[in-house]
């Protein structure tokens, strides 16, 4: 098993599949009265969050607690970090406290890579800057597999602000590893340069959402921040929504089995219409539940739990 999960590229197909299978076993716990396993008793998991992200933090916290690990939440606000402590010094502090795993959310791309060079324990990337968010990709893959029965050969459209999206990067890598065919869709200003050459699997790129939908098995809508408008990535929220938003008429273009995903939090009425978000195609609430199972699987396997 790998030691760290810094990037979805850390996972080969066998490891990724093992995580998804393990997540499936973890998910059966959720239906039980006692939702807890003793596996990580006595182990310490630190949630080191340099960005406010209640959703991701509580998902990791629930995952660690269901495995009986001791969980320490270390939030940058109101801590030594806000007094100017460096990441390295924080890392050495956590090291001294005997952290077996550090789950890190950080605004700077690559912070988990730096952290991994300073601590002995496992490092799990819970979102770094505009780089990656590998556990999101795992829970998304898990969701696709649960709904559609497979990942290999699926056509997955990832739509929106790919440039600034760590979710998109991790999904492109993991889906390529698992054999899906990815098409990135968005205005050219929000598609990173050289993305086809840059990413394993060579995703396709389209600027025309309508042409992509009829062949899509999965449409993953990315959150688009309205402040991108101020920086001229697109002219207005309305124009963005008209060209790249998933509304009801567009949803009708999808094959009948296709699902609609969103990593949350959503801008209803911007990238996704409320009727779409609440439709039976939508997996948005499932994704949250699957997040806990996927993160349990990651912590369990990284910390050497025996399957």
């Amino acid at each position, binding site marked *: 098993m790998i030691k760290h999960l810094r990037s979805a590229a850390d996972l080969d197909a066998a490891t990724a599949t093992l995580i998804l299978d393990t997540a499936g076993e973890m998910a059966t716990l959720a239906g039980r009265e006692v939702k807890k396993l003793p596996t990580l008793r006595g182990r310490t998991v630190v949630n080191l969050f340099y960005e406010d992200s209640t959703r991701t933090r509580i998902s990791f916290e629930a995952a660690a607690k269901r495995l009986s690990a001791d969980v320490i939440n270390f939030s940058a606000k109101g801590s030594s970090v806000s007094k100017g402590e460096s990441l390295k010094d924080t890392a050495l502090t956590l090291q001294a406290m005997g952290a077996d795993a550090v789950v890190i959310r950080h605004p700077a791309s690559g912070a988990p890579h730096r952290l991994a060079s300073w601590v002995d324990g496992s490092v799990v990337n819970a979102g770094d800057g505009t780089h990656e968010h590998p556990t999101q990709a795992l829970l998304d893959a898990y969701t696709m597999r649960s709904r559609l029965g497979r990942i290999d050969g699926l056509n997955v459209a990832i739509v929106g602000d790919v440039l600034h999206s760590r979710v998109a990067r991790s999904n492109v890598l993991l889906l390529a590893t698992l054999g899906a065919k990815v098409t990135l869709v968005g205005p050219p200003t929000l598609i990173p340069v050289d993305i086809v050459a840059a*990413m394993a699997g060579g995703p396709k790129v389209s600027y025309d959402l309508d042409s992509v939908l009829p062949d899509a098995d999965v449409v993953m809508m990315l959150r688009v921040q309205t402040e991108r408008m101020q920086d001229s990535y697109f002219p207005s929220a309305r124009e963005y929504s008209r060209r790249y938003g998933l509304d009801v008429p567009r949803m009708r273009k999808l094959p009948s089995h296709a699902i609609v995903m969103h990593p949350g939090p959503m801008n209803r009425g911007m990238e996704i219409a409320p009727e779409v978000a609440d439709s039976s195609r939508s997996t948005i609430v499932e994704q949250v539940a699957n997040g806990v199972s996927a993160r349990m699987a990651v912590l369990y396997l990284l910390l050497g739990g025996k399957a």
Partner: protein
Amino acid sequence: MTAYRIKGVSLLGAEPADLFVRDGMISGAVADAETVDADGLVALPGLVDLHTHLREPGREDAETVETGSRAAAVGGYTAVCAMANTSPVADTAGVVEQVWRLGREAGLVDVQPIGAVTVGLAGKQLAELGAMATSAAGVRIFSDDGHCVADPRLMRRALEYVKAFDGIIAQHAEEPRLTEGAQMHEGEVSTRLGLTGWPAVAEEAIIARDVLLAEHVGSRLHVCHVSTAGSVEVLRHAKARGVRVTAEVTPHHLLLTDELATSYDPVFKVNPPLRTAADVAALRQALIDGVIDIVATDHAPHAVEDKECEWAYARPGMVGLETALPVVLSVLGEQWELIAERMSRTPARIAGLTGHGTDLAVGTPANLTLVDPSARRVVDPAGLTSRSRNTPYAGTTLPGRIVATFLRGEPTVLDGKAVK
């Protein structure tokens, strides 16, 4: 003064012969000279660096004029031009004279201060360029390096104004609006790493504008740290038109590529950023062709805490004085004539440093360095003379060892070590 007999030295790769040094000059045979055994060594005119950050005043924890001078001497340099982005900024006669005086006191290389183009490097108002030119420091090169003189009107005025005292504007070519938040070269690797890109066009657009401005007003322009293949084409075009432009490339842009950012180790973060292998190839060819005139180090020492952090929070820059010649040797091979041209004669001429970059003929100032081309060494950051350790070459084996350096006939380095 002690006279020296540099025994059996190969002058720029020629047949070994004895070279005599007396009273600060290269001389004819001297009977009672102290012998320096130079068997297997090559003599070059002392290297001249047009682009050095000595950090004093302001960041003496990273480097001082003295420690930087020592690192320069150990790297084979006899003169360095000290960039103006100190704290306070070298934008007055007082600060440039202070740096110049500290250089004289250290006495290891000639330290020629560069003056800021604009007050506080803020790009708003010309600094007192004339006062710096007529100061004891005798400033001829002006640069806001670290910042681009982005305002085209201000750049035009600066180019024009310094004609009165044969000055030269050294531009850090970076269109600031195109590089907001930029962390590394914009391309495949930045896309993969999720680091904000620094597009090549941000450099090329400014160079294109500036060569046209320099042509329009008939002034001298020097382009700092050229880093892209496109910039090379712009310069080639400008030179063919007869524009008075010179350009430098750093050793790291001749050797390293943006792939190194994959580690997220900020020791590889530099501005302009490391580019692609195609850019490296174009820069090497341009250096050979003379489209790029010189190698300049952009020696940029940084304190440990400014590099031991997240990539985005790290300061850009690499130390380079002690590895420049080995890197150039690894890139160009033992083309001593070309190396002397690109690392000594031409930079001395651009900077107006008479007494440096002269051929080692009898009657010329004895500024020279002795290199063992057969030696190879593994770069060890802990072994650097500079006060800072931010070398991108840690663990890399590089050819060539600088054995001795003479400044006006006095050894500043012997047996690879600074003598003071």
